[in-house]
């Protein structure tokens, strides 16, 4: 995990460089005299069918992806920890009820639900982020629940309860700090799924304003050029896969989220 800070710094530099590059080149500037131009000094990745600079569009898409990622992670982590922790502390029938709730919610077909929600709210960054979070919180809650259960088996928790601490207050003071770090790791590993889901939503593009250069929307727009100018659809695809891969490799999910035959926390990702 000590690679993470270094990698984040590198990533920030790359994003900043891209942003600076995009500032010199307007992603929306149409230049029909330079359609489908190959890479040259002025357009580092060439232009698309309307003469727009590809690299500039990619970097705007990168910024949008990062924002959506941040929104989804914030929503999922807070909701997941809140519900999962509450379930673990509650014990008894309440816990079983919440557990079933989370398991069933985690099993619903996610992309379709996110699709329906975004067609209703549009593909603005906030609404897309919340739609994706709506379909993903359940697994965070399950992981948080598993982790909290593990902590509750330890001595310091039992001591706190024996001393008469109110369970929920004790939970916030004693369990929460312990599970935050593995939850962060899980969230980071889940980042890949979020990036891919957002690109799928943009690809299908219902209710979208197609002026926005989201990577998925760009692949949809350029899919007709797959044979003539393959770099057009492939560049955003490489970007998506690259970012998702990087997120996956950087963050090792915590051991308790590893799938086992009888665990309460499904451990892997689905789109």
């Amino acid at each position, binding site marked *: 995990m000590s690679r993470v800070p270094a990698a984040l710094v590198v990533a920030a530099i790359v994003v900043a460089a891209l942003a600076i590059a995009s500032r010199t080149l307007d992603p929306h500037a149409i230049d029909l005299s330079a359609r489908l131009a190959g890479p040259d000094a002025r357009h580092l990745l060439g232009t698309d069918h309307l003469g727009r600079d590809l690299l500039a569009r990619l970097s705007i898409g990168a910024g949008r992806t990062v924002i959506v990622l941040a929104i989804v992670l914030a929503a999922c982590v807070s909701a997941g920890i809140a519900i999962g922790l509450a379930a673990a502390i509650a014990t*008894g*029938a*309440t816990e*079983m*009820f*919440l*557990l*079933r*709730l989370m*398991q*069933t*919610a*985690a*099993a*619903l*077909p*996610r*992309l*379709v*639900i996110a*699709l*329906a*929600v975004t*067609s*209703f709210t549009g593909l603005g960054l906030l609404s897309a982020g919340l739609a994706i979070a709506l379909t993903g919180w359940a697994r965070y809650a399950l992981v948080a629940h598993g982790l909290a259960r593990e902590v509750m088996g330890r001595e310091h928790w039992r001591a706190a309860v024996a001393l008469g601490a109110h369970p929920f207050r004790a939970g916030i003071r004693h369990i929460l700090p312990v599970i935050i770090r593995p939850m962060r790791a899980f969230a980071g590993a889940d980042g*890949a*799924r979020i990036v*891919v889901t957002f*690109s*799928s939503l943009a*690809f*299908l593009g*219902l209710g979208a304003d197609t002026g926005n250069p989201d990577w*998925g929307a760009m*692949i949809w727009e350029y*899919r007709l050029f*797959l*044979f003539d100018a*393959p770099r057009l*659809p492939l560049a955003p*695809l490489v970007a*998506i*896969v690259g970012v*998702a*891969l990087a997120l*996956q*490799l950087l963050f090792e999910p915590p051991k308790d989220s*590893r*799938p*086992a*035959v*009888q665990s*309460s926390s*499904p*451990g*892997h*990702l*689905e*789109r």
Partner: protein
Amino acid sequence: MSNSILRQWIARAGGPAILVIAILLALLLIRAMPGDPVDVRLAATGGADNQTRAELRQQLGLNDGPLQQLFRWITGLMRGDLGRSLASDRPIAREIAARLPWSIAIGGGGLAFGVAGGFILALLAAPRGGAARLTSRAAAILGQATPAFGLGLLMIWLFGVQLQWIRPFTGGLTERLALPLLVIALIVCGPISRVALAAFDDARAAPWFTAARAKGLSENATLFRHAGKHAFLASLAGLTPELAWVIGGSAVTEVVFSVPGLGGWVVESIGARDYVALQAYLALAICWVAASHAGVNLARKWLDPRPRPLQ
């Protein structure tokens, strides 16, 4: 005594509770979508005057209050009547019946091949270190990092254009199904192989494994014959989150390959604001989730009848 039975019921109600909440929320959201199915439908034929619009609305029953429409739909559902599509006037049941086989073929087939592939990959990787394990890990990571539509486009480009092995859009049934099935199988086999590999590793640490080896059984034979059941069970557990592929989680794949399955139908219905179709789909999805989970659990119980430790 009655207190604990009540508590058990409350506990078990968690699953159905979220489904009921999900249905209600979804029905409300669907109705609240901006855009009017009548407008969408008339736009295809060039628009119409207000009177035609009003008549069409009346005919489709859209002038009743939302609760009334929902009540009509629910009572129809109980009679087995799924209603008619707002976009095409065709009975929903027939639409679903026409599309379901495609989704099952791609989703179910993809899952089946994915599980088989993941299992075999894990079987190959378990006794050896190094390359095979790396492949398993790489498959899992790449499978999660690649969007299904991206993989689909790559496949079309690779197999359809460069190698010219398959005609993904104009070929016969097998050719049309081959690539989308492969896409799903590739995406699913990675995580399944990780789960199965973990089970194999656990099995290798078990005393009965050492005993079998000591008796002279080869590593591969022990893994396959004795540990195979454990790994398969684990694969089934790992399969559960992926079951949504069948019911339309493969919407993107179906759109890319122009397959007339349920996923593509949902995308179209959302675009056309076809409330009735979406409600029917939702009901179907819920039934599928419940049924497939029950099915997988039954399979697991059949393979491993031992009582599970209480959670």
